[in-house]
């Protein structure tokens, strides 16, 4: 079915580009008939969390005196959720970010924040497409069962 091929093609390209890692494969294994919306739910939570955190980080780094402890705590959180969903590039960007935090390097942190944002929004666009395709496939398949 064309939709499924499209979805598989998209996910495969994301693996090839390194946007997704083996953790996403784990998630695919965990999604089945008893939990068809599992990946969609996780992705939605990830996006919500990430955007909230990115907004906080932007505010914190906008201060004259940066609270690096708070910044690090947020980056740690983002690193954790990106790791759980298999968002490899975002995770790696967070690792780099934490380095700059440790060094109390404001310029470095600002740069790292931009990299994280870039990687996140890139991923987010593809996740949106993925979820739309999944929805259409599930709608099609449930019609077939009637």
């Amino acid at each position, binding site marked *: 079915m064309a939709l499924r091929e499209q979805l598989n093609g998209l996910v495969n390209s994301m693996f090839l580009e390194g946007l997704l890692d083996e953790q996403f494969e784990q998630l695919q294994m965990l999604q089945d008939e008893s939990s068809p919306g599992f990946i969609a739910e*996780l992705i939605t939570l990830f996006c919500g969390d990430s955007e909230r955190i990115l907004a906080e980080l932007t505010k914190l780094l906008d201060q004259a005196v940066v609270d690096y402890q708070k910044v690090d705590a947020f980056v740690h959180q983002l690193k*954790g959720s990106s790791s759980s969903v298999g968002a490899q590039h975002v995770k790696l960007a967070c690792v780099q970010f934490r380095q700059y935090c440790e060094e109390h390097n404001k310029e470095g942190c600002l740069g790292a924040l931009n990299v994280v944002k870039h990687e996140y929004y890139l991923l987010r666009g593809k996740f949106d497409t993925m979820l739309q395709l999944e929805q259409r496939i599930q709608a099609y398949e449930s019609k077939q069962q009637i």
Partner: protein
Amino acid sequence: MAVVAESQFHVLAVDDSLMDRKLIERLLKTSSFQVTAVDSGSRALQVLGLSEDLTSSPAVYPAHNEIEVNLVITDYCMPGMTGYDLLKKIKGSSSLRDIPVVIMSSENVPSRINRCLEGGAEEFFLKPVQLSDMKRLRPHILKGKSKEQQLQQEEEEEEETSISSNKRKAMDEELSPERRRLRLSNNNSLI
């Protein structure tokens, strides 16, 4: 009295991250565990019946011998009570200390891992937790249960030299007759 014919083990999962709670819940359910997932150490203690709030009504938090938890899996980094704090509280409780505890963390810090293992944790899982990690849980639960069986046999026989600790025996004797009856019926299902 609840008698579980085909015992499905019950795992209490503790993590402040909603994403990670969803993930661990799915991992556990896929591996045929019954799951209760909570967002903090203090909530976990409430489920375990070790509520620090003495005014909580029994209707809201059932007595602990009605909710049997076979294993606790907890995140290490949590605000307020950390996974390590929760571990110490469980191991420090005469009624709960035999429940196996597994700690999860996104950070591979050897000193942290050692501290947890020395504190009584059975295992330390690096996040993200994998499906294959779930296989490591059952042996810890069964080890605990077969110890229980053994103890009961020893008690019944009365003369056997005990190979398990006296502490466990003391704990067993503190239990209500009802709890022991529950154990006896569980015994049959394990064969």
